């Protein structure tokens, strides 16, 4: 597996983790240092070919999927759960209309 398909997964994994975690500096997080260490360990170079890299990439993709789905779920949950029906103003905004007493 080339680094071309591995690096984007790492990037999006770190960006998802940044949104989820409370760390302001990602380097301080033990999880991030562990992930980077694993990526270095299973790196394919000219000298070595690591078969476990494919497995590691799958795990990284799974974790990325976990964080991403969790975040999307929470966003949608916050937007819709127990909100009831939309108000007249929300509906008007949705379709781009103005209410009668709004300024032209």
């Amino acid at each position, binding site marked *: 597996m080339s680094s071309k398909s591995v690096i984007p997964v790492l990037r999006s994994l770190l960006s998802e*983790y940044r949104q*989820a*975690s*409370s*760390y302001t500096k990602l380097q301080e*997080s*033990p*999880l991030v240092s*562990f992930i980077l260490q*694993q990526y270095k360990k299973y790196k394919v170079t000219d000298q070595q070919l690591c078969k*476990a890299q*494919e*497995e590691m990439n*799958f*795990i990284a*993709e*799974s*974790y990325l*999927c*976990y964080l991403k*789905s*969790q975040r*999307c*779920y*929470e966003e*949608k*949950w916050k*937007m*819709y759960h127990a909100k009831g029906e939309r108000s007249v103003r929300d509906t008007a905004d949705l379709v781009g209309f103005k209410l009668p007493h709004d300024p032209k």
Partner: protein
Amino acid sequence: MVLCSSVFSTVCRSQNCINRSIAFQTLAVQLRCHRFYATAPKRFYRKTGVIHSNGNYEITLDQRKLKTPQGNPFIVHNEPLALAVAAEWDAQKEKIQRSTMHLTALCSTVIDNPTKQSKFDLVQSLMNFLETDTVLFHSEEEDELYDLQKKEWSPIIDWFCQRYEVSIRPSRVIEGPVVSEEIKATISRHLLSYNIWAIHGFAFGIDAIKSLILTLCCADRYINIKTAVLLSRLEEEYQTGRWGRVEWAHDISQMETQARLAAAILFIHLNSSSYVVQAKQ
């Protein structure tokens, strides 16, 4: 209750006898309809961490050690899982939403084992899913949907049959496919080769997408999680393609299933791979 009784007495004083009983009934109905959910606890810690001793990993919330719901010490045996659980606790904002912490829940389930099931019992109960597997039921009524199911599910079933050297054929009738005892024995032998932690992961994943075949394909890295969830929701996707998609129902359920399956697959991999390294004696 003090408030309720005072409201009730004011209501009663202003009414006559018949009205009083009606008022009581309405009040009772109102009280019954109200559901008292436990409020989510506030985030009481600032930092989460992982401590390591004798090959065991524990999670710390500030100075406190994390415990399971039954009060047992929360001990896991590999570092990435411990780090992921700590990250999950760290991801909680003001309130702790335990229902979305699937990795923590899985670990606690294994440690506490609230249903008191052995590994063998668990595998046996998982075998019941094979006969009613989602990908084995093809549509009887709609030919368009049937073609889609055939196109998407057949490669999965073929791969599964080849991988485990069994023969399972999908069904188009309500009785469902026939799965022989030999096939069940083969699959359960394979599952029993995993440890109890991974088996709990399988149970969680299979329960999320209602398919043993798709979960096994995912655990074997033949398909990824998004594909597995999409395939398990094939009919729903087909119907939403025709009738329209509602974000607060279809998207939410898709995201939740994805999170659940991803947690299960991660859990299986982290508990069965080379991360579980034992030192030489």
